[in-house]
């Protein structure tokens, strides 16, 4: 019985109708849940990033959690539209900002006469604490940028021929 219905093509439990069968309509439930959960997860990721110095956390972990938010949105709303929203340029700029922040911090302490990332030499009150935070955020930005970039890269590879309508150099820009 079940095979018979499958043969007819409409034995599908999804209410789709014969004509609509080829169109995949995204589930509103997944999209709504992701919309609701996203800001809280994002905040949690930033919290972990900021509290790296005194607890089990840090830039790396926080960065991964933040990138998870983007991955969730990409899964629910489609990789293409998420990529259009973030744009590869912004992603690269983000990673660039992170790298330069970390380098600036490291080289800055060296320029002031200390070692690499030796915060004591900076003549600002409590700079050690803020220096560590800045460093963690820099790392977090780099990590989340790279994880999201890798995901987009993988997705572009997986869609294979589907991505062929994009310009080749457009895809190069995605890492």
């Amino acid at each position, binding site marked *: 019985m*079940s095979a018979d219905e*499958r043969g007819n093509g409409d*034995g*599908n439990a*999804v209410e789709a109708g014969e004509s609509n069968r080829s169109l995949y309509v995204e*589930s509103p*439930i997944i999209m709504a849940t992701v919309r609701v959960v996203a800001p809280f997860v994002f905040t949690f990721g930033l919290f972990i990033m900021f509290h790296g110095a005194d607890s089990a956390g840090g830039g790396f972990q926080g960065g991964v959690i933040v990138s998870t938010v983007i991955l969730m949105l990409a899964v629910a709303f489609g990789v293409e539209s998420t990529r259009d929203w973030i744009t590869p340029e912004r992603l690269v700029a983000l990673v660039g900002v992170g790298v330069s922040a970390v380098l600036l911090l490291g080289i800055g302490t060296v320029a002031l006469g200390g070692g690499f990332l030796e915060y004591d030499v900076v003549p600002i009150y409590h700079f050690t604490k803020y220096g560590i935070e800045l460093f963690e955020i820099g790392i977090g930005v780099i990590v989340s940028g790279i994880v999201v970039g890798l995901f987009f890269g993988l997705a572009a590879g997986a869609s294979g021929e589907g991505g062929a309508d994009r310009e080749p150099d457009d895809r190069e820009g995605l890492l």
Partner: protein
Amino acid sequence: MVTLYEGAIIALLVGGVFFGIVAAVGLLRLPDLYTRAHGASKTDTLGAGLSLAAAAAALGSGLPTVKVVLLLVFLFLTNPTAAHAITRAAADQGIEPWTSEDRGDGE
């Protein structure tokens, strides 16, 4: 001597493990994907909820308890959505639900 507080925690744990067992048994016994998803998405969620409540109670009041409650809320938000996503994917691929008419075919 078991205090009331300790007794409550242990009762919650027993309930949580019981529903965990129900989820596992359901996962193994039920005949098809959709019915298994029933067991997975709720008995397991309730079992996890009770166990987490026990953990929260054992941690006492304070920040960790808040985190456990958040964990609970998160599970209750996401587990049904995950079960929905999986069964929807199955339905979209044309996997037919088992009905009691199939009972003769064995599990």
